[in-house]
């Protein structure tokens, strides 16, 4: 959060109804080996009551993006450029104090592993009450009532007694519910869920997803849902953003992206996803190669070293020129729309169904 | 014995030299002239190493001659590292307790030193140094009038008898045994306790034919052979008086009753001890001791390193402080002697110890090897490891400069000319010696000093073609290990000092064939009939006659038997505060003379 450069690339759709709008976000960590561009020119919008899914492999920058929105990156080692506007408020330039007022209040986050994300030293009740007391100026009693109300809402049995339990006395699913209850204590307008179900088994996962959807209906929050699991995202998200090596490579509604993906990376993601109805003998197709080092990212399209279709693009465009991501339904790839369609129909689709 | 042990395993003072009675010159030094000093020390020591004179009644009466400039009053602070092992006189055989005994306890006789360092024996409780009759087999002592213990009770012959008889009791086990074994006679000396199992506590006493007290003031000792050294023996702290009424047996060891100029006011074992004036001590009855200061405050547990640093600094109460039996720490010797202001606050002189490299005669049987090693050893580098000229001097023979009969120039192996060793000569002697015999197992202590000695010995012997196999021994049990009769070592370093200024307390324990047993000081296991005969002859001779016999014995040992290679004489260097007056080296105790100290202001 140091310097703010003027955003020139306002390429993403800017609806007036956008609750959160991220423009040309650049996050750079300085490390001993040199700067790491964890997020490199990312733009997206989220509307109230809608869910934006962000998918991508580990290290693609999805978690960093969301920590940056909350301002939880380490200011000592991180440089942030771009623009994050939530409900008309610029967050990158906001003071620590202003951010504190927003965190847990207007925007809240659900973390991946509730075992480590909840403090082992304090009761669940206390951890729930804290933000309510802080943001609403509530008394201990009021906060406790609210916490019990929220614990009830997320489906914790005997919330009154569980209030005084420690996180380690909860089961995994219960902990995640408590975590969600904590995030919802102050009716946040923006809820960021960072792989909230990864650590859970499938039945619990479904319950949690249902819970989130129900709660969204009730509170009308905007949700950013981060995952690497396309199966989960298809149930949850309205819109989808696919990230690769710190950049967005494809955007669109969840339905569009899932049914007619346009970026070779998205194809790879879909091909490597197991499906319940697929033939067991059919081998999954992993994406060849490994994600690039963000210390020395490849020039041009960052996916090009792993991409099977660079030959189809004239010249060395893939390795020299960064493909732009257009507005609305779009993908950042040098292939022509026709090429994408042909390739998808001929090579990819047969593998998916 | 063994200053060596005192330096390496300080805590084991029990095993240290007994009240080592040395004859040395040198009370003060001018500082900074170490080499010259060494020569001077030697010269003075040599002129004084004559047999001790026995003083008559006139010389045994008090008060003692005043120390010039002495003032009364004040309290002297005393630093001491290890706690005292014993305070019961019967248990006292070591230097630290012996040193404090000089302030607390009186004996039948005592050593008296003049300003030149000449030592003689005077009467202490006795009116004189003792009257012998029957060719030295009977000794009679008359007690002085007006001698009282700290409780005001007069000391009678019954108290003297009790002091002797209690030494037969089981609870007395650490003190000297000369008197008891002599009284028991040759036939019973090994088990003298059987002569009086009750130690006199059960109403049974030694027969009048052994120890007689015809009246309150007279004590008579009867022996089966002449005991010319008796006045010196009785001057040992171990034979000090324990008043019969005051004796608490085992408990006496921490709360003794004083007869000397000071008494114990407070004592916390191993921590502090406060001595105050004993008002029942009458200076008119004492020809040696003074009572200038009001008392002494002992602080135990102060390391020699700290003692030296504090005394160098000479701040506050350290001005009134002395080292008791501690020495200037080796690494700080230069800081002390290099600064004239500090150096004038030292006392120094020879200790009674001769350090030597013993040959285990049961293993090193080839005399040529022993001779060659004696030529080869490097006294110079050994002394360097002891702190240089202030730590020791080259020893050309077995008699220390403190011993009557010391011959400064008796040097059969040319040690004084070639202190670094005569390599050529040694090689020549070894020319025809088979290789198997040129391998020697050398035992050394794992202390810092021991390591240095190991290097010096190894270097020297390797140069002449001897294969040295060095074996390390835990420093605490070093003397115990080399004292074992069947020890697996060929050569090892040991030190020995006299109990009183007579070669009988050196040659007898170290070279007498009857002393070959586990734990004895005859580390070389010498079993030579001629030595035996000479010892038997000398111990019954008057000191002046005996001197010639001892000389013969030493020459024969060093030239014909070669049980050990003489290495170096140890030296004493102690520091005291600037307000301490009357400080001088006591050739009797080989420490600062505590009986004549005063505070300048």
């Amino acid at each position, binding site marked *: 959060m140091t310097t703010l450069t003027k955003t020139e690339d306002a390429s993403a759709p800017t609806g007036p109804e956008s609750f959160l709008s991220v423009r040309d976000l650049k996050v750079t960590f300085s490390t001993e080996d040199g700067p790491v561009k964890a997020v490199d020119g990312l733009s997206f919008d989220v509307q109230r009551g809608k869910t934006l899914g962000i998918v991508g492999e580990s290290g693609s920058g999805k978690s960093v993006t969301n920590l940056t929105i909350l301002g939880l990156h380490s200011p000592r080692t991180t440089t942030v450029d771009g623009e994050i506007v939530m409900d008309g408020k610029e967050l990158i330039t906001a003071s620590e104090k202003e951010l504190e007022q927003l965190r847990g209040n207007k925007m809240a986050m659900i973390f991946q*592993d509730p075992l480590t994300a909840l403090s082992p030293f304090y009761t669940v009740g206390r951890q729930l009450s804290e933000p309510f007391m802080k943001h609403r100026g509530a008394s201990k009693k009021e906060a406790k009532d609210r916490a019990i109300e929220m614990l009830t809402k997320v489906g914790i049995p005997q919330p009154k007694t569980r209030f005084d339990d420690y996180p380690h006395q909860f089961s995994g699913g219960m902990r995640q519910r408590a975590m969600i209850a904590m995030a919802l204590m102050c009716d946040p307008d923006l809820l960021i869920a960072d792989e909230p179900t990864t650590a859970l088994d499938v039945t619990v996962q479904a319950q949690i997803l249902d819970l989130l959807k129900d709660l969204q209906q009730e509170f009308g929050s905007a949700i950013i849902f981060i995952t690497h699991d396309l199966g989960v995202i298809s149930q949850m998200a309205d819109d989808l953003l696919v990230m690769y090596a710190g950049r967005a490579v494809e955007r669109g509604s969840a339905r569009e992206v899932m049914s007619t993906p346009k970026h070779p990376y998205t194809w790879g993601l879909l091909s490597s996803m197991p499906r319940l109805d697929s033939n067991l003998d059919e081998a999954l197709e992993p994406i060849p190669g490994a994600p690039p080092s963000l210390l020395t990212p490849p020039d041009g399209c960052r996916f090009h070293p792993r991409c099977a279709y660079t030959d189809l693009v004239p010249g060395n465009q893939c390795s020299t020129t960064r493909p732009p991501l257009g507005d609305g339904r779009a993908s950042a790839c040098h292939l022509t729309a026709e090429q994408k369609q042909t390739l998808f129909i001929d090579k990819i689709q047969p593998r998916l169904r | 014995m063994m200053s060596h042990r005192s330096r390496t395993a300080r805590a084991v003072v029990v095993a240290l030299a007994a009240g080592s009675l040395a004859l040395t010159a040198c009370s003060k030094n001018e500082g900074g002239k170490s080499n010259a000093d060494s020569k001077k020390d030697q010269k003075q020591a040599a002129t004084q190493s004559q047999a001790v004179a026995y003083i008559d009644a006139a010389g045994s009466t008090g008060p003692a001659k005043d120390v010039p400039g002495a003032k009364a009053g004040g309290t002297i602070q005393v630093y001491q590292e290890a706690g005292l092992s014993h305070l019961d006189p019967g248990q006292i055989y070591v230097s630290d307790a012996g040193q404090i005994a000089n302030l607390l306890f009186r004996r039948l006789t005592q050593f008296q030193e003049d300003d030149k360092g000449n030592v003689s024996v005077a009467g202490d409780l006795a009116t004189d140094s003792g009257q012998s009759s029957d060719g030295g087999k009977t000794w009679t002592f008359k007690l002085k009038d007006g001698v009282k213990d700290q409780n005001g009770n007069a000391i009678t012959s019954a108290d003297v008898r009790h002091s002797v008889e209690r030494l037969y009791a089981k609870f007395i086990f650490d003190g000297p045994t000369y008197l008891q074994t002599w009284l028991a006679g040759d036939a019973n000396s090994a088990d003298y306790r059987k002569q009086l199992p009750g130690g006199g506590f059960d109403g049974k006493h030694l027969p009048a034919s052994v120890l007689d007290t015809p009246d309150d003031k007279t004590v008579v000792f009867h022996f089966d052979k002449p005991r010319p050294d008796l006045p010196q023996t009785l001057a040992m702290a171990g034979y000090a008086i324990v008043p019969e009424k005051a004796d608490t047996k085992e408990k006496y060891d921490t709360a003794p009753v004083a007869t000397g100029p000071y008494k114990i006011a407070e004592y916390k074992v191993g921590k502090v001890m406060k001595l105050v004036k004993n008002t029942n001590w009458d200076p008119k009855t004492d020809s040696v001791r003074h009572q200038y200061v009001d008392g002494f405050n002992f602080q135990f547990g102060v390391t020699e390193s700290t003692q030296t640093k504090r005394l160098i600094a000479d701040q506050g109460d350290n001005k009134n402080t002395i080292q008791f039996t501690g020495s200037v720490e080796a690494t700080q010797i230069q800081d002390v002697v290099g600064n004239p202001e500090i150096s004038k606050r030292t006392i120094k002189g020879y200790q009674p110890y001769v350090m030597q490299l013993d040959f285990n005669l049961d293993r090193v049987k080839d005399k040529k090897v022993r001779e060659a090693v004696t030529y080869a050893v490097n006294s110079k580098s050994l002394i360097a490891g002891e702190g240089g000229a202030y730590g020791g001097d080259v020893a050309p023979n077995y008699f220390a400069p403190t011993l009557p009969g010391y011959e400064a120039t008796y040097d059969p192996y040319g040690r004084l000319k070639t202190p670094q060793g005569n390599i050529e000569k040694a090689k020549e002697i070894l020319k025809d010696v088979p290789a198997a015999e040129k391998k020697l197992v050398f035992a050394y202590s794992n202390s810092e000093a021991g390591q240095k000695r190991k290097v010096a010995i190894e270097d020297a012997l390797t140069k002449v073609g001897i294969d040295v196999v060095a074996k390390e021994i835990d420093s605490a049990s070093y003397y115990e290990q080399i004292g074992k009769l069947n020890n697996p070592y060929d050569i090892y370093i040991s030190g020995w000092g006299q109990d009183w200024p007579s070669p009988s307390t050196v040659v007898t324990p170290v070279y007498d064939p009857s002393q070959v047993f586990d*734990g004895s000081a005859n580390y070389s296991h010498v079993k030579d009939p001629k030595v035996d005969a000479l010892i038997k002859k000398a111990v019954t001779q008057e000191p002046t006659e005996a001197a010639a016999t001892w000389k013969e014995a030493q020459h024969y040992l060093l030239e014909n038997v070669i049980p050990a290679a003489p290495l170096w004489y140890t030296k004493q260097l102690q520091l005291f505060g600037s307000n301490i007056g009357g400080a001088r080296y006591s050739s009797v105790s080989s420490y600062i003379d505590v009986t004549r100290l005063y505070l300048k202001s």
Partner: protein
Amino acid sequence: MLQFIIRRTLGAVVTLFLIGAATFFLFVAAPSDYASLACGKDCSPQRLADIREALGLNLPVAQQFWDFMTGIFMGRDFPTGHCSAPCLGQSFYSGEMVWSTIMDRFPLTLTLTVGGSIVFLVVGIGAGMLAAFRRGSFVDKFATGASMVLSSFQIYFLGPIVLVILVYSTGLMEDPKYVPLTQDPVGWFVGMSIPVCVMATIFTAQYTRMARSSMIEQLAEEHVRTARAKGMSKKYVFFRYAWRGSLIPIVTVFGIDFSAMLGGAVVTELTFSLQGIGRLAVNGATTKDLPLTMGVMLVGAFFILIVNILTDIAYAFIDPRVRLS
């Protein structure tokens, strides 16, 4: 909790017995004993036997051990008098009752230990926390640098330097000495201030580094980030969330240090010529003074076990996860 304490106490008693037995029999198995060291000059077999008898070393080893162990609970009688429970025997060397010797030296050791602990905990943890809170700032760099330099010092190096500066060359302060607190509180404070501070300095450096790194580690914990994500202030999170977790390694190390110091700080005691438990232990071992060594070992082990239990209780207070287990 009560059950836990009872169980641990019983365990400690058994451990103490085993430590006592091990010390005793190792000692007896050693090649030389006190008698042969003490025998010294004129060591005839008769004399050696006399010493052994006087000290009770002639009795069967099992009996000696039994007498020693029962003495702890029942007291013992010696020729010099009765030794009431807890009787740790009579020192071979000084003839003093070991229990009273230890009790005599203990106040000094306690002063060093508690005094030193207070200084290095307050200063060390304070500096470490501050450095972690202002990571990368001048304060941090200074604290890190200073603790690096200081922790490479040793007491036997720093001690004499401080003594030369404050005592020997300037006379600003007197030689360190121990005066009982009850007798002269000012003298106690002044006399012990140099040793306590020098010893604490070395520890302070370690604790600064430990507190800092432990704190930084905790600040990177996910639950700390969660607390921040809830909108709690940096300070609040630092002192409520991160601080508590960072205490665990500090408590662990402190427990070890504290009990070790109670067992005697040999180097500090030697450097300043003080008489505490540490030098007793060294003296006991070098002179083969069996009762003294046994006594010091048992008292030291006792403290280690007690502090161990206290450390475990402290864990339970800090971290609810270890409660009731």
